[in-house]
């Protein structure tokens, strides 16, 4: 078995790369949920982002159009959810589930013509610096722009919610839409915006999978990562920094269990495969076990429809 410093650097880098889609989708969903809306359609929005990004990249040849197009596709599909839950006051859970089913179906339909086409290479930044510093080099350098954005996002999200006025408004709308409304805040507008933002981030997460991580299109390629992103939001008790920790643990254990298999550690493989799910939940539950803090950070009106005229 080879253990040197660069080997550890490589492992950490691949763990971070696998955590990117989870961080993006979770941070997006976190904003949506903080405004009091439970959108279970993350998986559906992600897969729509994946096919849109891949299709636009293939058709237009432009990576920029593809990345922004995927985010726009996420926005468009989440607009359906926003219209149904905010304007027509439908049930959040049922609508979100329908959105996932719809997303998987429509992505498969659009994707029919894109199966079996190789993707394009996505440019990476600071490639030349990769070998200059041992251990740190492979971790910090040679990644795509989306990678760097994803690791900045939890901190930006945390700052946004705690320190900015708009962040306060979002939290107010999520905690007590009635009081917020009485203060003259347009609850519906804020929730619309938060849902669309969540859609954009899920779309970006999907595009990362189909354009950067494994550049190809196949049906159902998100493989349940949207559901894991949703779970991360809840188990992190709506804290973006804990989302980052959770995503790293989940991605890390998935990759480390493969390494343990390859080294030949004698632990049942089925147990190793289940490990990421079990440990991520345990760790997040343990680090967030303060019930007073959970009560404080849980959006009180989460998943409840808001009727303005009562």
């Amino acid at each position, binding site marked *: *078995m*080879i253990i040197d410093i660069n*080997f550890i650097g*490589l*492992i950490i880098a*691949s763990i971070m790369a*696998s955590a990117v889609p989870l961080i993006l989708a979770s941070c997006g969903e976190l904003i949506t949920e903080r405004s009091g809306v439970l959108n279970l359609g993350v998986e559906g929005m992600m897969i729509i982002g994946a096919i849109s990004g891949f299709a636009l990249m293939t058709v237009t040849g432009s990576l920029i159009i593809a990345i922004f197009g995927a985010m726009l596709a996420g926005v468009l599909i989440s607009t359906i959810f926003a219209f149904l839950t905010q304007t027509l006051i439908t049930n959040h859970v049922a609508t979100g589930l329908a959105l996932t089913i719809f997303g998987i179906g429509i992505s*498969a339909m659009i*994707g*029919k013509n894109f*199966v*079996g086409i*190789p*993707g394009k290479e996505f440019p990476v930044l600071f490639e030349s610096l990769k070998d200059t510093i041992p251990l740190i080099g492979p971790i910090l350098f040679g990644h795509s722009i989306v990678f760097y954005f994803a690791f900045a996002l939890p901190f930006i999200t945390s700052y946004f919610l705690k320190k900015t006025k708009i962040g306060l408004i979002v939290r107010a709308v999520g905690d007590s839409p009635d009081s917020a409304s009485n203060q003259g805040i347009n609850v519906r507008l804020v929730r619309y915006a938060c849902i669309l933002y969540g859609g954009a981030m899920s779309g970006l997460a999907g595009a990362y*999978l189909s354009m950067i*991580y*494994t*550049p*190809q*299109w*196949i*049906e*159902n*390629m998100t*493989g349940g*990562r949207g559901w894991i992103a949703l779970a991360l939001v809840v188990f992190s008790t709506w804290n973006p920094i804990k989302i980052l920790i959770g995503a790293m643990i989940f991605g890390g254990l*998935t*990759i480390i269990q*493969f*390494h343990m*298999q*390859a*080294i*030949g550690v*004698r632990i*049942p*493989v*089925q147990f190793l*495969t289940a490990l990421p799910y079990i440990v991520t939940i345990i760790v997040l539950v343990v680090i967030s076990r303060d019930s007073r803090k959970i009560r404080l950070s849980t959006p009180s009106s989460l998943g409840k429809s808001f009727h303005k005229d009562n």
Partner: protein
Amino acid sequence: MHKFFIRSFVSSLVLLFTFTVAAIAKDVKAAFVYIGPTGDHGWTYQHDVGRKAVEAAGFKTTYVEGVPESADAERVLRQLANSGHDIIFTTSFGYMNPTNKVAKEFPNVKFEHATGYKREHPNVSTYAARFYEGRTILGTIAGTMTKSNVIGYVASFPIPEVIRGINSFTLAAQKVNPNIKTKIVWAFTWYDPGKEAEAAKALIDQGADVIAQHTDSTAIVQMAEKAGVYAFGQASDMDKFAPKAVLTSVENNWGPYYVDRVKAVANGTWNQKDTWHGIGDGMVVISDLDSQMPADLRSKVKKLQADLASGKVHSFTGPIYDQKGNLMVAEGKTADDGMLAGMMTYVKGVEGDIPK
């Protein structure tokens, strides 16, 4: 007058009869039941390529994709049998019991079950491909091309089909290079590009410079391309996904068999059988050999391919020992189909245990 009537009556009868026969022959409808989506670019995709060959031969086809291997399968099969299909192909192992159950209820419909072994009724046939022959070729190439002597292998589920592939691959690789080690990682999925890529990355980080796969997506060959190691395509020719990494691919070619069986129904010559075709019958196809391979290796592989096709060489030729050193196949003997079908032990030289 009278004579004229009889003559025209007879001739129109003859005409009618020919038309009816033609109509029956042309009207054979085939149905396909798939486990995954046709867009997986792997197992189901290749079956669908086969279905399109049947369509091109002038027959009507229907397919249902993403059918779970549960009571749902029975429902789908019953519906297809009820709606005028004459032959139904069920293309996953888990459809074995539903296929036999529904076949009993519809004795006039022919059923063809892929990769199974139960033929409980005269209208059920089974078919499978000897993919392990392809893996003998991949093992020979991997053993020759590796420099680190570590070969990575991403496996899906511990079933005989996969174990057989690992064994056949390792035996061939050891034959050309006794120093190689096959490291196996179980992904516990048939296709999840993200997971497959992570599994391949782990193997590459641990020094593997040739990666083989028994999962379906192209993520592994792409990862190999990025890391600058060699890989092999699975199910279809994956060369365009990783032109530098892919040395060759083992393709699943179901078309000829499907056309053959549907025609047999049309001609009324369909009979129950158990088909297990390999390179010789064209069900397993080896894609073009990459020019990065030295010329003598390429000619060696071509010869091996011809010998496997003719039956001169068998993938499992003794002496073969298991991991504990017990003799599995005696010197000069080859493994019989029964042993191959139920193979659940690693041969000597494979590292680790089979997950239970």
